């Protein structure tokens, strides 16, 4: 057979070079599963929607009820306490600038969405992190899922989320949680696993129960690491502000999208820099809290 051909390539069967016509429809399965969930768990998702949207509305209304100058003072004091006086001054100046951009209500909306997302992320993430720290099985299950959550482009899971919830702030919060929860899970696990072995042994040697060990020793010892996770989670939640607006979230993200459509450089920059300001303020303040917690925990084994 071979001898008759002038070259190997031409004689080779075609299927060596073209992918066989098989299809493994994972995408379809996911779609069907999404449909199934949307139809059968409607009540459940409605319940989540009511809770989440209620929380966001409440927080937003609360923030908007605070006069702008009181908020500036609060930010100044927080900044002063957790960083230094110049930090406080800078942060309140940022808030002032946001006011001058005429983006005050949008900013408050964004802050509420972010804070609610972060709180829910912590409620989900910290217990999961604790479980992963104690169980190797749990850890080996969560790790690939967390990897996928962090690398999957965030637009992709926006699609199923809008099946479950009406367009608006709630699907944005859910998408934000999916995107932002991995760091707090990972760092909670890491923090607990990294507690000095002798410290754990000494707690054991006094006859601590598992709960006493966790509450009195492991969590307090891991707190600085957990705090770093909370900081990361918050930053990632802010980064989702614009993406979340694609499923109808209001706030600064929505302004950015609007500016993109209008090619409005001025509005785009002002809304964008406002997000940066909030990010800096939250990062420095949570960072300051972490540093404070770190103070006595570093040197003494």
């Amino acid at each position, binding site marked *: 057979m071979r001898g008759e051909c002038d070259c190997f390539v031409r004689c080779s069967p075609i299927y060596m070079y073209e992918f066989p016509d098989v299809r493994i429809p994972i995408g379809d399965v996911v779609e069907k599963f999404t449909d199934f969930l949307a139809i059968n768990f409607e009540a459940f998702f409605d319940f989540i929607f009511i809770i989440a949207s209620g929380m966001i509305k409440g927080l937003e209304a609360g923030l908007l009820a605070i006069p702008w100058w009181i908020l500036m003072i609060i930010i100044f004091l927080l900044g002063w306490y957790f960083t230094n006086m110049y930090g406080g001054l800078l942060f309140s100046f940022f808030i002032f600038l946001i006011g001058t951009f005429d983006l005050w209500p949008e900013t408050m909306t964004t802050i509420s969405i972010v804070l609610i997302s972060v709180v829910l992320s912590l409620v989900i993430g910290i217990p999961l992190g604790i479980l992963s720290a104690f169980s190797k099985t749990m850890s080996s299950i969560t790790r690939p899922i967390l990897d996928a959550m962090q690398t999957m482009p965030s637009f992709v899971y926006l699609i199923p989320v809008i099946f479950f919830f009406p367009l608006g702030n709630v699907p944005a919060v859910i998408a934000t949680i999916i995107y932002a929860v991995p760091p707090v899970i990972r760092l909670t696990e890491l923090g607990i696993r990294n507690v000095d072995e*002798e410290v754990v042994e000494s707690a054991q040697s006094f006859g601590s129960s598992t709960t006493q060990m966790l509450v009195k020793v492991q969590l307090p010892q891991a707190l600085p690491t957990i705090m770093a996770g909370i900081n990361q989670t918050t930053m990632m939640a802010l980064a989702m502000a614009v993406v979340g607006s694609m499923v109808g979230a209001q706030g600064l993200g929505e302004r950015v999208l609007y500016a993109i459509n209008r090619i409005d450089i001025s509005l785009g920059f002002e809304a964008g820099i406002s997000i940066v300001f909030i990010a800096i303020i939250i990062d420095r303040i949570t960072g300051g809290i972490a540093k404070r917690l770190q103070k006595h925990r570093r040197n003494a*084994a």
Partner: protein
Amino acid sequence: MTVKLKIENVSKIFGPRPKKIIPMIEKGISKEEILAKTGHTVGVYNASMEIMEGETFVIMGLSGSGKSTLIRCLNLLNRPTSGAIYVDGENVAGYNKTQLKYYRQKKIAMVFQHFGLFSHRTVLENIEYGLEVRGMSKVERQKIAQKHIETVGLKGYENKYPDELSGGMRQRVGIARALANDPDILLMDEPFSALDPLIRREMQLELLDIQNRLQKTIIFITHDVNEAFKIGDRVAVMKDGKVEQIGTPEEILAKPASNYISEFIRDIDRTKILQAENIMMKPFGLVSLKDGLNVATQVMRENGISSAFVTDRKRQLQGIVTIDQAIEGIRHKQTLEEVMSTDVITVAPDEYVQDIIPYVLESKYPIVVTDEDKTIRGIILRVHVLASIISDSTEETELETEV
């Protein structure tokens, strides 16, 4: 003295299927071979010992000898693979979770090499921990903790955090925390190894002092022979997970059970461990007061010595007479009592050799070892002191004496 803690054929093997390894060790396969073939680490093999109530028992060995593994078996931070551990006659190795919790809360406490302090708690809160875990009320436990802060000399540091203290002070917190639980048994896992030498010595003395007052049963781990022999009433030497020898420091110094132990104790400062009664020889050439000078010269001549100690009827030391004094005395018709000199240097039987050295250097005559009532127990010559420092064994050496 009653047996407080009895360790019976305890083995601890680390790895996925530890029980399967026991027969391999019984066949005499070495630790290294087992690790290479099966991936199991032999921590402790077939250790047995009895520890008395109120005793300070030291387990000594180099790193990897299994001493830390063994001490962790005693409060079940490590579950022994086989064997039994009896505390007050009860086998704690078979305890269930509740019994174990109670045992750790009430009976046994541990001090760690790197202190194992809770860095997020103040000194006072650290010391309270054991009592807090038991569910004691805050007022009560603070009172007890305060008392122990004073025991270890940390008054005024109650509200400091561990990272604000020096290494020595941190370990004081560790000790106070263990004592606050009022345990029968105190486990100390190389507690002073992480401290610098001056502080270490201070802490050793303080531990001896605390032990004198509290009379706990202490099990103390160290890799330092000097520390072991200084602190321990009895010492167990471990090597490759096995117990090589158990005995008092003097016994081990006198009769090391193996070459390994001889090697181990070679560098030790014997003068700090050996006492006068370990190196003295039987007194010879004694003269009784009533014997008189003629007998004294005769005794000296017979023994080939140039001086003799004078005693009374109860063998209580009276003085020393030299051959010159004796001859002079006979010439002037004096009595023994008149010519002898009374400035003899005496030491107690439990005096350490290092404290005897200055006397030996200073004195022309042998040193006399006497009881409190001045009864002669033995004499020490310069050669005895030298021999005690150098020789590998301290068997009494009959030396030709020249005084």
